[in-house]
Every structure is written in C-alpha cells, then in structure tokens.
C-alpha cells in the first residue's frame, strides 16, 4: 500500500472564465506564474476547451494537470486541478459557483462579470481559497455577500 502524496500538492492551480472569443472574464491563480506564462496558459486553455463538443467529457488533460470545465451560454468556466483530484466534485463546484453568481447578480450575464470584476473576486474568495474549497453552502455565501454589499 502506498501513502498518497498528491495531497501535498495544491488542488486548484487556477480558475478561468473565458468567453468563446477567448476574452478572459476572470483569472484567479493559485500558483506562481509570471505574466507571460499566464497569458500562454489562458491561450492554451481556450484552444483546448473550445474545440470540444457537448458529447465530450467535461474533463481534459492539460500539461501535467487536468481542466474540469463547463460551458454556460457563451462562457467557459474552467478549473485546473491535479490529475488525481475528484473530477465530479470540481465539476459541481463550478456549478455551485455559477448558481451563486446567478443569485448574486440576478440572472448573471457576461457583462455583469465585466463591470463588477472586483466583486467577482470577492465571490471567488468566499467559495475557494488557497486553491481549496472554502465554503459550499449557497445560503451562507449569499448571506455573507449581502452583508458585505450593505457595508460602505
């Protein structure tokens, strides 16, 4: 029997929200990359994800990692995790996050993410921190966001 070492690694390497044209609507990095590398990753992820059709899996191998992604209208929500991480848990992690955004922005659309980019970061930090899932309860997250919204 082996003691698994993958847990030493960080789970989420980055979260990306991109539209079909490849414009980034959110990039949250949990690993050190320099700016050029980030740009390259963004382009590669876009290239890898947009060619897949709906019948394909929501997972795709990516360098030494894998991308778990789901498409909502024109937006791709992508999470890059370790190959040993739980695919379905992160797939539903994305959906949970999207449902929170949807409530918070009242039927969220791409423009909400553009104009309120600084708030999207707050939503992310409530739900994912240090590359890990921080909070999963939609009720709790929304209550907290409502409270923050009321502050000056």
């Amino acid at each position: 029997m082996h003691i698994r070492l993958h847990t030493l690694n960080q789970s989420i390497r980055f979260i990306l929200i991109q539209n079909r044209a490849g414009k980034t609507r959110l990039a949250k990095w949990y690993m050190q990359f320099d700016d050029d590398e980030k740009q390259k990753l963004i382009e590669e992820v876009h290239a890898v994800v947009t060619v897949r059709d709906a019948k394909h899996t929501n997972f795709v191998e990516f360098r030494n990692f894998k991308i778990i992604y789901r498409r909502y209208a024109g937006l791709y929500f992508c999470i890059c995790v370790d190959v040993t991480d739980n695919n379905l848990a992160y797939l539903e992690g994305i959906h949970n996050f999207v449902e929170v955004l949807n409530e918070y922005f009242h039927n969220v659309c791409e423009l909400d993410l553009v104009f309120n980019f600084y708030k999207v970061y707050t939503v992310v930090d409530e739900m994912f921190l240090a590359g890990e899932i921080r909070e999963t309860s939609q009720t709790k997250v929304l209550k907290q966001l409502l409270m923050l919204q009321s502050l000056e």
Partner: protein
Amino acid sequence: MPAVSKGDGMRGLAVFISDIRNCKSKEAEIKRINKELANIRSKFKGDKALDGYSKKKYVCKLLFIFLLGHDIDFGHMEAVNLLSSNKYTEKQIGYLFISVLVNSNSELIRLINNAIKNDLSSRNPTFMCLALHCIANVGSREMAEAFAGEIPRILVAGDTMDSVKQSAALCLLRLYKASPDLVLMGEWTSRVVHLLNDQHMGVVTAAISLITCLSSKNPDEFKTCVSLAVSRLSRIVSSASTDLQDYTYYFVPAPWLSCKLLRLLQCYPPPEDGAVKGRLVECLETILNKAQEPPKSKKVQHSNAKNAILFEAISLIIHYDSEPNLLVRACNQLGQFLQHRETNLRYLALESMCTLASSEFSHEAVKTHIETVINALKTERDVSVRQRAADLLYAMCDRSNAKQIVAEMLSYLETADYSIREEMVLKVAILAEKYAVDYSWYVDTILNLIRIAGDYVSEEVWYRVIQIVINRDDVQGYAAKTVFEALQAPACHENMVKVGGYILGEFGNLIAGDPRSSPLVQFNLLHSKFHLCSVPTRALLLSAYIKFINLFPETKATIQEVLRSDSQIRNSDVELQQRAVEYLKLSSIASTDVLATVLEEMPPFPERESSILAKLKKKKGPGAVSVELEDGKERGELNGGGDRGGDAAIAASNASTPSPSADLLGLRSTAPASGATPSAGSLLVDVFSEAGPSATSAGVNDDGFLRFVCKNNGVLFENQLLQIGIKSEYRQNLGRMYLFYGNKTSVQFVSFNTTVSCPGELFRSTKTVEPLVEGGAQVQQVINIECLTDFIDAPLLNIKFRYGGALQNISLKLPVTINKFFQPTEMAAADFFQRWKQLSQPQQEAQKIFKASHGMDTEVLKAKLLGLGTALLENVDPNPENYVCAGVIQTKAQQVGCLLRLEPNAQAQMYRLTLRSSKDTVSQRVCDLLAEQF
C-alpha cells in the same frame, strides 16, 4: 436576494469600462487607456489630497487596466493607503490590488504587513477575513515570517467567528505549502484536528484541507484525525437528505465535505481499531448501496454529486486494497457505468477501473469487462475516452488475454488518433514483449507495428526488437525469414528497412540455404531500398553490407563494387563517405580472420530495464503506469538483471537529433562494454572513435551520480550544449542544492524548463528558472531538500529546452544520497566495539567484498570516508590498516546510528566493507553506495 447593478458605487469606473468596450480598435483602446493613466497620474500627484472614494475608484481603474494586459507601474502606494481605510469597500479594493499585482518591493511589503497586522487584531471579522484572504492569495515568505505564528492562534481561539476560522485554516495551508519550515503546528495539532468536530460544516470543509495536507506530511502526529473523520463521515452518510439543510446539494448531503473526508482517509492505512474500521466499512457499503437506489432527482447535478462521493469512496477502497468484497462490488459498479449514457461516467469508470486492475482481488473481475472496453475503444467519440479504454486494456492485460488485447490494439492503431498513436505503439510493444510465450509471436507483432504505424515506432521500439532477437537464438532464424518477407513489400517503412538491415546483417546466414533468399537475393533486396532511405538508415545498411562480406564471401565482389561507386565513396555526406571508404579498405586488406573478428556477431546485450518501458513511464509520469509496479518480478524474465549494463546505445536511444554515428546501434560503445570480444572491441573503437558528438539522451543519465557520493560540489553533467554544476550543503535532515546551468553555445536556449521529481521519502521545494538562457550565460536554481525517512531512489532532474529548434531532453539523477544526512560521531574504541556488538543481528549488517577499481592510497581513502559524512575514528581498530567510521543519519522520522569498517587488502587489491546500523535498509544502501567509491 441581492441584485447588483452594473458597476454600482463607482460611476466613473463604469463609464471607463464602457468607453473601453466601445473602442473600435486596439489603437483606440490604447489611446483611451493612456489618457486615463495620465489623468490618474495627475490626480495622484496633485496637490489636493484625494478622498477615499476617489482613491478607490482610481486604484480600481488601474487594476482594470492591468487585467486588460497592460503594465501598471504606479499606484501601489495609493493601494496600500486604502488598506488602512475604515471603509470596507475601500479596503477591499486595496487588498484586491495588492493580491493581483504582487510586488516584492520591500518597503511596501513592510507597509502591507503592517496593515494586515492591524486588521488581524481588529476583531472585526470582515476586516480579518480580508487580511487573511490577502495572505492566502499572496502567500509570500515575508508574510509567512510575519504571520505564521499568529494565524494558528486565530484558527483555534474560542471566540473566533466561523467565517474567520474558515479563512484562517486555508490561509495557514497556503503558508504551510509555501514555507513549511515557518509553520510550526506543535502545540496546536490536537486542537486543529478537533476542528473536524466543529458544528459549522463550513469550518470543517475548510479545516479538513489543512488537516489533509498536514497529515500527509506528518501522518503520525495527526493520526487521531482518522477516527474523527470516520465518525463525521458516518454521520453525513447516514443522514437523511434534508438533515444538513444548507449543506445539502441537490438532495445529496454535503458532497464536497464527504469527498474531502474520504480523501483525508487516503493518507492512512485502514484503521486498526476494529470499531472504527467497522464503522468505515459500513459507510463505504452505504455509499455503494446508494448508487443502486433510484435517483431522488433527474438533474445531472444530483447524480454528479452522488457519484463524486462514490468515486472517492472507490479510490479509498482501492487505496486500502484489503477488502476483496468491497473491491469486487466497486468493480461491478464501475462496470455498470461503462455502459452509461453519460460520457463523463464512462470516462471516469474506465479511469478508475485501471487502478482496480492492478489489485490482485479485483483483477479478474475487471477482466470480465474486456468486450465492453474493446467496444469503447472502437466506438467512443471523445478521444480522451478512447485513450482511457486503451489504458484499461493495457492494465487488464495478462498472459490469458494478451493475444486478444494486442490484436485489438493493433487493429485500433490503423485508425487511431494521431495524438495517441505513439503511446499505443509503445504499449503494444511492451505487452508483446512482456507476455511473449513464443518469440515468433513477438517478432510478428513488432513487425506488424512497423507496418501499420511505422512513423510512430520510435527508436526504442525497434532497438528493442533487435536486442531481443540478438539475445535469443531460438528466434533468430524466424526473425530473419520474417523480415526478409516483410521487405518484399513494394513500399515498406524505413524502420522496417532498419530492422531488416540489422537482422539480415547479423543472421542472414540462417536463411541463406533457401535459394529464394540466397545471399545475393538478400543483398539485392536490401540495396533496392537504399536510395529511398535517409542518411542514418543508409549508414546502417552500409554496415549490414560489410557484415555480408564476412557472412557470405561470395557477395564480396558485388558489395565492393557498390562501395566503390561514386555515389558511396564520394558521397557528400561525410559519415556515409567515411563508412564507404573504411569498409572498402577493411574488406580488401583485412585477412578473413581479422574480418571475422571485427565483424563477429553482436554479443548479447546486457539485460536491463526495457527502454520502451522507461519511455512510457516518462510519457505518463510516475505512477500513471500501474502495471509494471506489480509486475516487477515478472519483468525479470526478459529484462531483469542489474542496471549497470553498458548498452549505451539503448540508453542513448531517445536521441531526438540522430548524430551521424548513432545509427550503428552503438556498435562502438556496446562491444567493448560487453567485454566478450576484447580484440574486436578495441578494433571497433579505433574504427569509429572519430565519430561526432553523441546525440542528446533522454534516458536517465546517472554517470555523474556516483561521483558525488563522497563530495558535494563539481560538474554533474556536461555535453556539447550544456554544463550543469552543482554545489550542495547539508545540515541534519535538511539540504540545499544549487544547480548552475551553463549554456556552452552562443545561441540562447528557449523554453528552458526543469522539473525535479522526488521519491516520497524526500521532500523538496524548487524555484523555477527563467525560460530563457542566453548564449554563454549561466543560470542558477536552488533546491531545498528535506529527508523524511531513509531512501534509495534519488530525485530525478529533467531538463527540457529548445536549442535551434530541436527539443533537448535530459534526465539526470540528482546526487542526493542517504549518506548526505550523516552527522559525524566521535567515539572511543570501547564505545565503538560495544555498539558494534549491539548491532549484531544479521539484517543489521551489510557486507561487500570487492576489487579495488582505483589506487589504494591512504590519503585518498581517508578523504573519501570523510566525504561520506561520517567521523573517521583513529586508533580504534586493532589493525592499523583498517578504517572505522561512525555517524548518525538524520531523517525527519528517525535517526539511524551507523558504524562502518573498511578492510583493505593491498596484496589482493581487494576490500571488505562492513556496515552496521539500526536499520537494515540503511546498512544496505550505504554499503552499496560506498562500495562503488573505491
């Protein structure tokens, strides 16, 4: 529920974003941005003090501009100022700016840390969370130094708010991953573990990530988490779907937390406590049962959440690998998924089954699904699913089904996606070799491979078939006959010509009795392909021709004629020309005896790990290829034996840019190393010693490795392009290694990238190097190493870069050996012998008697023993010719005392080396390492 309108709060920002969106061209956008930057700059520089709102607005605009991809070189100070605002929205923008545009400007870091400190002690949970999120996002060493002591206190304090605890737990995790030396859990350990019992599920969800990470590094200290995790899991699994309210997701209670709990348990062996184990098995059974229940919702979210838990539970079952009943149930469940309409589930089932296939309990159960998996390989639309199917076929392959699986894979290869062909070829080649009962089947399979997918048959594969044919005389005649037939095809792949040339050159005589394959027919057949081939293949064919002259004197005149023709002897390629000239000369002046010696049949290759297996492992990364882990013994039949073999040809076979001389299959390096034909060997060295630089090898190079057992600094590796120097220092169980990569050329290396993979017993952190190395420049990389427990395997360093367009790939063993963690121990003779006697159990001792391979000079011996890291004890051994040493090996897990005695016998030029230590693996390892040094 709150609704947020567009850019509420900051009108100016919304207007600016709209402006940018309305820009018709990139130029217009840049113009608008420059205008804004000028405006902001003037505001920041203006005499009038800005109010908090304006500052926030401008900093936020700067951030937006940065996120568009433009450089921002000012505004940091204003952002830092926002941190000390009392208003949440201003603080938030300040922290966000800092988190996104991390700046290591030391003066600012001090100010930022100050602001964080104030917020952490503010007792305002909102501000505390902002500060913690900033630390978690930046995670710099400076921050770890400033806050690693404070955060555990916040995490376990009784009056800390739940949301702050969640952030503190993950913040600490980030600091621990970045700077493990600075985060000392000691006194907090038990209180952190007890967060698993916290009433707030969100706190548990966050804390368990921290606990999992800490447990995987210090399993013993955190082992109480096992029973807590089991009881938490049990409560969740047995709860009704509505019990957990906020944490129920599409009728599934706490799916993410369940997954994390199951993952934490994978850091440990099965619980020893019977009650805990019973409860856990019950949980796992319940999870498996639930998979059979009708779904509570038709929504995919429901089934995904449920199956996320199921797959994690199956991972745990596989990890334990001790419950046959659960393993088989897991396998049956996955078998159902193999035919599910959801592609995701089919994919995950194939992936998960791959690991089940390697368990002795479930291997047979997995095999029953072979038809479904073959079908998946043929019909799945998503290439990644087909790839998993191929992986699974590979994993479930054994002697009973090898022929079927290899046949299916071969037929799939004809239509396989280009992206996976090379890997498929490797897999087929490995399975064919591993399960070959009769080697004619093996030869047929490999030749089929070349026929079907010749372009994807890498050098490793065809080198390997030649190696095997040379080593097994029962198959040589068959191989010669089969390649001869294969070469009859009007269009055959160049790899077939290479194999054919080599095999007929060695064993053509075995089929020469048949008039249909007489020597001249063989030669004409080979030579008919000559002009269609590349230079390396032609060079190989020339060598086959000279071998023909030796095998069949009757072909001499014909072949000499060919060698003498202008297209050979005046070939513009220097390698071909040289061969033609030398072979011609050799054939005309050497006597038949000399010729027979020089061109003798190749001696058997030393057996070692199959190069193709190594290549596949490299392709898939460690651990991804599950089969050979369990099959280590079986492999011994074909490729067993030591790995110190001299077949440099095979080691260098990954050559990405074949050098002019690499094509002879390393004739020159193999022959002398084998030692079987010394005279031939030395002759061949003479003939070929002028050969050009050898190609870049991607096989692991461990030449340098043993030279560093007794020293810490020097040149680890050098080739035509690159020199790697090494400097290392060790203290107790910690080490630091500086690697210096020197570009010896005048051209820059691009995409320069290094990775270090460590065995589990070592922990390391590495800073990445710049991807560009200018010509003549040297770059440095620092690797920090921590020895967790004693180990054998050294870390592997892989270097990849592009030089003038060609990808270079170098793998080296880093000279981190167990003796580096020695602390010398001085002791008197009486002490030494007393301890020596205490360590008298047979397994505590390792001994080797070996011949001196260097001079036996006293001073050199002493220097080496001191370099080993032990104390050299004078006047201890009654025989003054002998050496005795003592030291303690420091690992994180334990200290291992170690005694050494080296007895030289100058007359016989021999040594006897004896090691005794409290741990058998250590004695053996140190003995093995040291025996190579004298």
